[in-house]
């Protein structure tokens, strides 16, 4: 039977505040366990949470950038459940009145654009971390992360393939990084995603039973896990089986999802307003002030790159795919005002090295200055374009100045007529047949001969000069 795939996504994005959501502990990742806690985030009796204003501002900015409606009257609620990484026995979250509702984000997938509706985004505190001790039946708990501000962003079930899920997550992550409200680090858990997925016979209007997927910390795993789950559910349904509402963990080593079993499943969170926190009213003045402070977002920047620099829409899309890359591009163009040349290098050589090493453009060992140095060497005829491309990985890996690498490798372009003439003579001697063909009028042979001279020079000959001198030699 043909099934329609229905997917919604829940994202937990850590907001980039200095201090936690309700206390003054820091939010640094990777410190010694339990070195970043206080009576408030440890849930000790008699303590009082007070909300971090910056976290509220970041949530509002994100909500506005997602085209959402900002909730004027905000309340915080307690979500009650028992888990070792939740010291208070409840998580402070928002239930009835989230900070943002009814937003949307536009994504590009499969050659078309689509709006993904955001049902809600709300502020809540993060839990700590459980580390499972093998064999002992015990867990170790680190509460450094407990109380870190999160923005939980929930879509409507608008997605229908793993490609769309990845496109949505990339767009959302870029957006949050553009706003500087989340560092987007998936491995460190700053941007966590949980797709929920159900199948229904094509044409059916009611939803099937949905399964939630967890433990996915890269875009590749998102794609793999969603594809696996679609296949699994299709198979179960085709064999007349039943899908259970459950949470399944992605196991990337086995390439499959497996049911998460917990001894502490509370399906009744008994939300109620947290009496420790006073209501929060977000005035329209405050919202407008934050709206005015929003940076230029990717879609606006893309349009500007097209009009201001005259680069094709495709280029502009890639160049603005991350804020760091857009900043890099603009820095290069300021130094070297040939946008299309810069764009080709940034999208080609640079992005390839960045992707291979998993580096963001703002941490590139080849700075905009260095890239421009390389381009200038080509313009000055010191090296050929081919040599420039060939040495780029070395410039990237070594962090050395391009000129230094050119010198060390002896790659300076040969434009000296004497040296070139010697090479040309040899090539002509070695290829009498082709020389004969050329003299009989077969012009195409010239290209072959130029290639032979380039080869003899180890790619260092100036191709323009070679062309010119070859024609002269053949005419003589």
């Amino acid at each position, binding site marked *: 039977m043909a099934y329609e795939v229905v997917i919604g996504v829940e994202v937990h994005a850590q907001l980039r*505040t*200095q*201090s936690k959501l*309700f206390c*003054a*502990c*820091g939010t640094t990742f990777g410190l*010694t*366990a*339990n*070195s*970043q*806690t*206080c*009576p408030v985030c*440890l849930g000790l009796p008699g303590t009082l949470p*007070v*909300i*971090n*204003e*910056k*976290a*509220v501002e970041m949530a509002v900015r994100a909500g506005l950038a997602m085209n959402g409606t900002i909730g004027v009257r905000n*309340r915080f609620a307690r979500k*009650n459940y*028992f*888990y*070792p990484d939740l010291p208070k026995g409840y998580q402070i979250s928002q239930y009835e009145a989230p900070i943002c509702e009814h937003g949307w984000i536009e994504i590009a997938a499969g050659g078309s654009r689509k709006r993904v509706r955001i049902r809600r985004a709300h502020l809540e505190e993060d839990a700590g971390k*459980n*580390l*499972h*001790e093998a064999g*002992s*039946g*015990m*867990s*170790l*708990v*680190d*509460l450094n992360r407990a109380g870190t501000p999160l923005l939980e962003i929930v879509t409507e079930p608008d997605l229908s393939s793993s490609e769309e899920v990845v496109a949505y997550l990339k767009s959302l992550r870029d957006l949050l990084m553009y706003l500087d409200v989340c560092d987007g680090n998936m491995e460190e858990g700053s941007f966590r995603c949980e797709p929920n997925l159900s199948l229904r016979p094509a044409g059916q209007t009611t939803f099937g039973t949905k399964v939630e997927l967890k433990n996915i910390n890269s875009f590749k795993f998102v794609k793999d896990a969603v594809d696996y789950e679609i296949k699994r559910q299709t198979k179960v349904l085709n064999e007349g089986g039943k899908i259970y509402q459950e949470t399944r963990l992605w196991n990337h080593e086995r390439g499959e999802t*497996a049911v*998460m*079993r*917990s*001894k*502490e499943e*509370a399906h*009744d969170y*008994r939300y109620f*307003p*947290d*009496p420790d*926190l*006073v*209501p*929060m*009213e977000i005035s329209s003045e405050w919202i407008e002030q934050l709206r005015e402070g929003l940076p230029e977002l990717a879609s606006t920047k893309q349009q500007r790159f097209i009009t201001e620099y005259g680069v094709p829409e495709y280029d502009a899309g890639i160049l603005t795919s991350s804020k760091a890359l857009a900043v890099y591009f603009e820095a290069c163009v300021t130094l070297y005002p040939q946008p299309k040349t810069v764009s080709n290098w940034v999208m080609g050589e640079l992005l390839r090295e960045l992707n291979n090493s998993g580096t963001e453009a703002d941490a590139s060992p080849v700075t905009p200055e260095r890239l421009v140095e390389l381009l200038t060497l080509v313009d000055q005829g010191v090296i050929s374009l081919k040599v420039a491309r060939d040495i780029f990985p070395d410039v990237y890996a070594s962090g050395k100045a391009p000129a230094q690498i050119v010198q060390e490798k002896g790659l300076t372009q040969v434009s000296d007529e004497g040296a070139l003439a010697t090479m040309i003579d040899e090539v002509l001697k070695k290829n009498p047949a082709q020389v004969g063909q050329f003299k009989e009028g077969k012009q195409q042979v010239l290209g072959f001969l130029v290639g032979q001279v380039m080869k003899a020079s180890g790619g260092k000959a100036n191709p323009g000069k070679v062309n010119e001198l070859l024609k002269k030699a053949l005419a003589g």
Partner: protein
Amino acid sequence: MEITRQEVEKVAKLARLALTEAETTAFSQQLNQIVGYVQKLKSFSTEGVEPTSTVPGQSNVFRPDQVQASLSTEQALSNAPDAEAQCFRVPKIIQES
């Protein structure tokens, strides 16, 4: 509105409280008295009155985003019944598959 024994048992389970039969009976009665007392509010008209979830009547109490010193790891773990490798040590929750 009446609090049934089943409701008391459910709440006790969610709160990880092991109640005896006698305690369940006693708490059912006491909770019914408390809820019954609060029911008196129903005789007043509350139309146009905003629901209250906090007492002080304040709103918008914020904290600046500034880090202050945390407890030391030793202090943080000092009340823990069991600790290891700078961590709280507790019975495992997730079952090993």
